[in-house]
């Protein structure tokens, strides 16, 4: 705790605060409405997931990855499954790969919908939030059809997926994809190009290209700063290299490249791209196995791997060390939000309180994966 300076007012923003997206605590010192600095204090949601990983077997840890980024459980499952598979050297059936891509991209859309919605409510417009929830409901229904749960799916398992998609899934997904573009247009009309919204976000909290690289910012936040780095394109995994999609990059449409509006808009563009990916995957889907033959007890050879995947919030990395037993020797999780959070103190210097909310919202951090 820094010594309190009489000239500034010390305020705790969080851990219970409407717009710190969970239990982030920011110690804010302000001069009236203007911030001097904001320091994040984290750990309120710490569950020692990395330590738990050392006590459970490889497949048993999959449900814990659901609890990393709970808005993108599929993507977390996927990254973990890929890590263990690399260690085991398993080949995944093509159908399973396509299913994984479909699920990951659907989850990306639903995660971005929450990002869009919660950001809009941070900015004082509550209606877009409910619109986002409304569309997310479709995706939740699709997931419920597939694996029975609506938030923590535990669907992508080591070797493939837990079960094949049910009858009617493809039709319903196509229905959603036909319905969704009109809704994105609605979001843009209602919020993205709203004059007040642009006034609030243009030129606010600009992350320069160099800063983004220095702080290890990844995901849409990095791309908003003008760097077309997306693991799905840069280090293709699964079947991403066969798919045709664009990497949206921040162009400074209403202000500077890398401002809060750019970061927000990346998510809208990515939802469009993910829709395209899902459409292509549905066309590619051919009968086949939904999982590889994996033995019940996994004993990977001793060694270490690092696998990363493009999560909705950035690069999720798993560094896994095996000593040849049934349990990981060490699992280190590289959470994208953790790196993204680290730049907030730099951005928050000298802005106004309302801008700090815009910064947190536009970075779209999620606490469970920061605290792990």
């Amino acid at each position, binding site marked *: 705790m820094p010594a309190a300076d009489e000239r500034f007012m010390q305020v705790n923003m969080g851990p219970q605060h409407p*717009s710190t997206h969970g239990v982030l605590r920011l110690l804010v010192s302000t001069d009236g409405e203007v911030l001097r600095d904001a320091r994040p204090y984290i750990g309120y949601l710490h569950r020692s997931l990395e330590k738990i990983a050392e006590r459970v077997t490889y497949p048993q840890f999959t449900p814990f990855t659901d609890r990393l980024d709970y808005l993108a459980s599929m993507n977390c499952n996927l990254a973990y499954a890929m890590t263990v598979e690399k260690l085991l050297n398993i080949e995944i059936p093509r159908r399973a790969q396509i299913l994984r891509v479909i699920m990951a991209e659907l989850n990306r859309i639903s995660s971005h919908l929450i990002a869009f919605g919660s950001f809009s409510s941070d*900015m*004082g417009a509550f*209606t877009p939030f409910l619109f986002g929830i409304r569309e997310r409901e479709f995706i939740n229904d699709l997931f419920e059809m597939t694996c029975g749960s609506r938030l923590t799916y535990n669907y992508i398992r080591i070797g493939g997926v837990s079960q094949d998609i049910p009858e009617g899934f493809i039709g319903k997904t196509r229905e959603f994809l036909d319905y969704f573009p009109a809704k994105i247009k609605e979001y843009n009309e*209602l919020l993205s190009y709203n004059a007040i919204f642009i006034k*609030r976000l243009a030129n606010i909290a600009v992350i320069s290209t160099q800063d983004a690289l220095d702080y290890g910012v990844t995901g849409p936040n990095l791309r908003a700063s003008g760097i077309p780095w997306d693991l799905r394109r840069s280090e293709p995994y699964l079947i991403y290299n066969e798919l045709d999609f664009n990497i949206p990059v921040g162009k400074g449409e209403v202000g500077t490249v890398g401002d809060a509006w750019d970061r927000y808009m990346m998510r809208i563009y990515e939802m469009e791209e993910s829709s395209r990916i899902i459409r292509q995957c549905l066309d590619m889907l051919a009968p086949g196995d939904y999982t590889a033959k994996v033995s019940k007890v996994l004993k990977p050879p001793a060694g270490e791997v690092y696998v990363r995947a493009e999560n909705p919030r950035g690069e999720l990395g798993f560094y896994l060390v095996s000593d040849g037993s049934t349990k990981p020797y060490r699992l280190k999780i590289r959470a994208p939000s953790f790196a993204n959070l680290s730049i907030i103190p730099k951005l928050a210097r000298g802005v106004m*309180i309302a801008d700090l909310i815009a910064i947190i919202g536009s970075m779209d951090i999620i606490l469970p994966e920061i605290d792990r």
Partner: protein
Amino acid sequence: MTELISRIVGGLNTPVFLTRFLVTVLIMLVSGAIVLGISLLYEGLATYAERKVAGDIQARIGPNRVGPYGLLQFVADGVKLLLKEDIIPFYADKWLFILAPYIVFTVSFAAFVPLSYSDHIAVANLNVGVLYIIAISSVVSMAILMGAWGSNNKWSLFGGMRAVAQIVSYEIPIVLSLLAAIILPASMNMRDIIVYQGGGLGIFRWLVFNNPFTFLAFFVYFIAAIAEVNRTPFDIPEAESEIVAGYHTEYTGMRFAFFFMAEYGDMFVVSAIATTLFLGGWHLPFIGGISMPLWLRDVLQVAVFFMKVFVLIYLMMWIRWTLPRLRVDQLMELCWKYLTPIAFFNLIGASVWVLLLHGRGIYDIIARIIVH
């Protein structure tokens, strides 16, 4: 009223001055109770309406459980708030903390008094009605600051400072816009102002159509009025996502309800002023010339007056559930750089108009040209 008092007093056999005093007090109490009852009923129904409107805009249903169509929801809410624990923070300045909600509510209620609801219905026919309302609603900012300071909470203090800055600033465009309208009837009496707007089918002689300056003044007034009652996009003093709940962060139960009801009361009052000064008050459109019983005319006039007010309130709700929030400096910029100069221009323009055309409105001029 004097006539009524003497009539009642005349029938009684007691010392005149005493009875006169008692009867006056009695009449004041009764009329006060009637207005209080009506305003409380209105406030309850307005919260219901707000939630229904919000539900409609946000693709959901809104309250529909308590009573038919959920109409009694506000009763349930009221009971809930009454039964809640009344928390006074330990370090609060108790007197300020306890007094603030009552002052806010009293002031908002007191502003109902000089309104002219129909040709014959008004609680008090004040000759300085407009001035009275402006003066008494200024007290709100003091009461809010009392509550904010008394809470001994930093978020409350932020909210209180924001509220005072905002309300004091926006009073200037409000007063200037109202002046632009008042100089035509040359009266501050609510009834006189409405009577002045008679004729022209009950529509075309409204002050808003009188000349281009009053037309502009109406919009300046309405925008500033939304800011005056702290509603989105100007809900900065209670910006939920930024400063928790602003000045009423620490208030619970009925004390919170007083702030809440005062907000809806204020909405009614500012809309009623707009109706009275710009939109012809209780004049019946089109059917004003038809002869009908006095009671029917009064009932219709009250209905027309309330309809106009409710349209404006609906507009405020619509705006609230559509737009994001401005930042505090942008809010001040809007007031001082745009609204205040425009309002000054309006006032000068309207004065010149009155001077040159002797208060004839556009309708009168057109009517004259057609007749000649």
